């Protein structure tokens, strides 16, 4: 039996395969590098090591949450409730922490985040409600509960040991930097190499095909929302430790920024396409831009114009790269 089209088969080297897989990510990385170069030319202090640390600390919260958002978007969903979950989880943990101690307090934070995410996931996957509506409702509820429970006040009499999460070092490296790096590596491996990770892509790409292939679609659809809830709580735990206070008024705008990072990183809101590497670049693109505008002293009123323009230019660049490739 002769292979009729065998001659068309192109052997795939590891490198060309990598490029083909991460083309958009590479384009965005290019945009990020260009931005960094421009900022450095305008203000050389941008490159200072203390500023690099600043940037890292500034992208940390949204960066961690964006990992979860990536998973959700990969399934074809969306999570608008990240800010509200972040707020309610730290408030609940913060309320018990003074009396129950750091360990219990932090456990409550993580648990509340996880539970809120689970509720999102269950409503989406099993009750089959639109993710946009479920998480919009959850955002409204959690943000409101954060106010109600804290009576709108910041909680600041936190135990000293709580400072570790935001300020502690392990072997000379900030604890949260380690968390950040480990989470990204773990998420990347999870998505590219593990069975549930691959199922998440399959579900996002074609849920009906995934179901018919024998994947328990609903089950695997819950995971991303639950993980996102947990990560919201974790990120905000670190942040409130770093700030030394728990603010019920936190989290507004988290949803749009994290989704923007995911989309800038090459993901499709229809699901099935994207990577945490892309998200990481997206988060840094936004973070570096905001930091840079502040450093070079761009007028506050104009910052939005600059931010919006660069975001659009970045995707135009990606678009050009894509067209060229054809």
């Amino acid at each position, binding site marked *: *039996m*002769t*292979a*009729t*089209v*065998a*001659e*068309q*088969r*192109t052997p*795939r080297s590891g490198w060309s*395969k990598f490029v083909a897989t991460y083309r958009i990510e590479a384009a965005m990385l290019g945009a990020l590098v260009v931005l960094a170069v421009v900022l450095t030319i305008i203000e050389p202090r941008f490159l200072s090591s203390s500023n690099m640390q600043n940037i890292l600390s500034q992208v940390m919260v949204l960066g961690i949450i964006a990992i979860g958002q990536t998973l959700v978007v990969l399934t074809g969903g969306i999570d608008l409730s990240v800010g509200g979950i972040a707020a309610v989880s730290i408030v609940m943990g913060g309320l018990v922490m003074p009396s129950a101690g750091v360990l219990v307090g932090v456990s409550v934070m993580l648990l509340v985040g996880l539970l809120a995410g689970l509720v999102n996931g269950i409503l989406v996957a099993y009750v089959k409600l639109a993710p946009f509506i479920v998480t919009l409702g959850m955002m409204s509820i959690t943000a409101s509960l954060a106010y109600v429970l804290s009576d709108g006040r910041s909680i600041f009499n936190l135990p000293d040991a709580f400072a570790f999460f935001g300020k502690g070092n392990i072997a000379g490296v900030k604890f949260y930097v380690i968390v950040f790096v480990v989470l990204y590596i773990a998420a990347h491996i999870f998505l*590219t*190499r*593990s*069975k*549930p990770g*691959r*199922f998440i*892509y*399959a579900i996002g*790409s*074609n849920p*009906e*095909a*995934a*179901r*018919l*292939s*024998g*994947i*328990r679609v609903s089950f695997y659809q819950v995971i991303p929302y639950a993980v996102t809830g947990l990560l919201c709580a974790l990120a905000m735990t670190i942040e409130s430790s770093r700030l030394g206070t728990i603010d019920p008024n936190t989290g507004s705008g988290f949803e749009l920024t994290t989704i923007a990072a995911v989309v800038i990183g090459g993901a499709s809101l229809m699901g*099935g*396409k994207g990577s945490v590497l892309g998200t990481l670049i997206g988060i840094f693109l936004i973070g570096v831009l905001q930091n840079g505008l502040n450093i070079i002293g761009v007028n506050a009123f104009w910052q939005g114009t600059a931010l919006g323009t660069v975001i659009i230019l970045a995707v135009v660049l990606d678009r050009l790269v894509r067209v060229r490739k054809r």
Partner: protein
Amino acid sequence: MTVNIPLLEASGIQKSYGATRALAGVNFDIGRGEVVALVGENGAGKSTLGKILAGATEMDEGTVSVNGMPVSFHSTKDALDHGVAIVLQEFNLIPEMTVAENLFLTRPTGYRWGWWKTRKSQVDQASKAIADAYMDFGIDPEALVSELSVAQQQIVEIIRSLSVDAQLFILDEPSAALGRRETDSLLQLIRRLRDDGRSVIIVTHRLDEVYAVADRIFVLRDGIARGEFDPASTSTDELVAAMVGRALDKEMHEARTIQTPGDAVLTVDKLVVQGSSSECSFQVRRGEIVGVAGLVGSGRTELIRAIFGADPAVSGTVVLGGTTGVIRSPLAAVRAGAAMVSEDRKQLGLHTALTIHDNVVLSYLAKYGKFWLNRKKLDADVAQQVDDLRIKIGGSWLDAGVLSGGNQQKVVLAKWLLSKPELLILDEPTRGIDVGARAEFYRVVDDLVAQGMAVLMVSSEMPEVLALSDRVLVMSKGAIVTELSREEATEERILSFTEVMAAA
């Protein structure tokens, strides 16, 4: 092992979708090492039965037992656990994933330690599975499924389902997207499975395949079993009569009205398609059907897409309806009087979320529509098309996505006929269409041609090409290698050209 217990037995199967009764109490069984062909018109309920037996859909009523034990499947996984695997009629691959991943996505062997994906656990196994099926049609296990041709995707689907260790394989129109060569391999594979003691249910509209592999033929019509036949003692006519509920009047070969063609409607001159270096030149004239034959991957689809303006051409000229030069968009083609029924219905033809009505009126509106719709006229036109093409529907306001495959194809055809084209381009037009509808379709095309329409038809179904075409263009590797007249064209001659070129 008791011989008289069938491998799988289903009785009293009922299934309704809203007001539509897909199955009205069907009894079905299949023994070990048996190949049963499941045939019937579009919408007869074949896919529904297959899906129920494979756990892809739940039945309303009825019982299924495997090896004499009652079972109830809630998912394809349940069915697989009981040894039942299926190739569904609709594509169910993940386009963004590689072939290897698609093949081993849900297989335990696809992962080391149950969850860890490695090259070894997927790519190597995939190469082996492809080789074992003797279906190595240039499919790279590491290629993305979205980069494959429709035929290659279908092969991946087949390999995916057939390489599992199941007792019963259900194949729903596996050959619809395949060329002759691939179909032959498939039939070989089915025979090997049977020899191995496995059972196969094959759903197909191609009766030659039925006679080639089936031990028994099971006919469905309007959701009711219409008898079982032994291929050795049943004529095609008898079978067709059982399927459509009446005798078909004529052989399609005779149905064709041959006439002297008029002026050229389409002139293609030195057209170079992207990714190819060959120049293609030919004409299609009023009142004739030009067939395009070739193997899967010979570039037929690319050629007609370039003519229609769906893909940009590199160079050359197309003369059509007063326009000269390359056609730059489908709209330009439609305005110049062309229509194109695409080969990939689900992706390129049908709007599954829109109603049947809204699907059918689209091209008409694009070509002639004023700002405001004339709803009375459109309603009447749509009703006319639905009647003419015998589209089996509950109402034209229902979503097109719920129709059976064949009826979906008719909706796409109706859309194009409503735009009153001078040149009708067909790419695998009867893919998934039942014998009755196919005969009607041929008659419709013949009528249109008799009235002066020009038809350019790509088809992998040799009998169809031979029966309908006034002339046959044979393609190989992106080039038109020869043109045969109706008299010259035989299956052997066409194949000889494709083979010569493929070997070269």
